[in-house]
């Protein structure tokens, strides 16, 4: 119990330090790399909460692929962020952030303890899922059983969302490149 508290406190303070560095730094590449590190620490956090599947996804998607895609997009961005001067609206925005954050922390005291078996979330369907994934589906990983079988519709929706997003980005970006290449090809031909 006490080791768990120490590990969690270390991870949370580490995430806080990384977040402060992200706010402070002006170089875009440092921001991207620090955001990747933040995701990796978040993945460790999920491991300590026994959510191994989520941790795996966070580590591979959050820390891996999104960092690479940001780096690929970096070549279109300016190297350094423009330093913005302080204006009056910032105080208003800061006070709203502090207010909402304080309210959320206050509300979190009403949440049930993590891992308590009498929590409402464990009373409704979870026992059916755990029983069913052993007897009906017959695979040890309950997460996969829920993801692919019990909630197959939701996963289908997620797949379609990713599919559509990929196609949309391709259509938006490819249109430009094809025009560019067509033009350069035409130029070359006309030169000859």
């Amino acid at each position, binding site marked *: 119990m006490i080791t768990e508290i120490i590990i969690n406190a270390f991870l949370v303070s580490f995430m806080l330090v990384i977040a402060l560095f992200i706010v402070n730094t002006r170089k875009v590449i440092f921001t991207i790399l620090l955001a990747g590190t933040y995701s990796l620490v978040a993945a460790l956090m999920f491991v300590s909460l026994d959510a191994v599947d989520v941790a795996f996804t966070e580590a591979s998607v959050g820390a*891996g692929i999104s960092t690479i*895609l940001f780096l690929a997009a970096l070549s279109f961005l300016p190297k350094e962020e423009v330093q913005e001067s302080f204006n009056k609206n910032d105080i208003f925005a800061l006070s709203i952030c502090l207010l909402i954050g304080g309210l959320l922390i206050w509300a979190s005291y009403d949440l049930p303890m993590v891992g308590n078996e009498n929590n409402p979330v464990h009373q409704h369907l979870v026992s059916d899922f755990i029983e069913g994934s052993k007897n009906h589906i017959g695979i040890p990983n309950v997460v996969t059983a829920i993801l692919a079988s019990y909630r197959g519709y939701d996963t289908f929706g997620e797949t379609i969302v990713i599919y559509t997003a990929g196609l949309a980005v391709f259509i938006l970006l490819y249109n430009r*490149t094809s025009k560019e290449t067509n033009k350069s090809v035409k130029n070359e031909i006309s030169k000859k």
Partner: protein
Amino acid sequence: MNNLILKVCTKVLFTPIILFGLYVQFHGDFGPGGGFQAGVIVAAAFILYAMVFGVDKCKIIMPTKLNFFLLVLGAFLYGFVGIVGLILGEPYLSYDLLGSTKQSGQHIGILLVEFGVGLTVCNVMICLFYSFANFKFGSNKND
């Protein structure tokens, strides 16, 4: 990029990364993992190859047409497994009648569905990287 160490390391690492992706893909029933994670890992191998050897070399091993075919095939496979269940006379996306027993039916269904997810995610990531790598900033200003 013209660094010999990077090129050799990429050649050595390329196959094990894909192998690990396949392990995560097909081991999702027994441990952590599944289609989403496996797709991202396999895509990472191709993106590493594209970063070291250039996008044009990567398009030889993963042409844009093949990329799109697999992208559509993954989503299609998922929907198709559901329709097979519908034809066999049970609700959409329930896999009980796909195998000889209920459990083997569920196994086959989950394996196929996860494979569809993996294909789609992997190819969407490669497609995103191709689009970013080919993108020229402000190239249609004159149109």
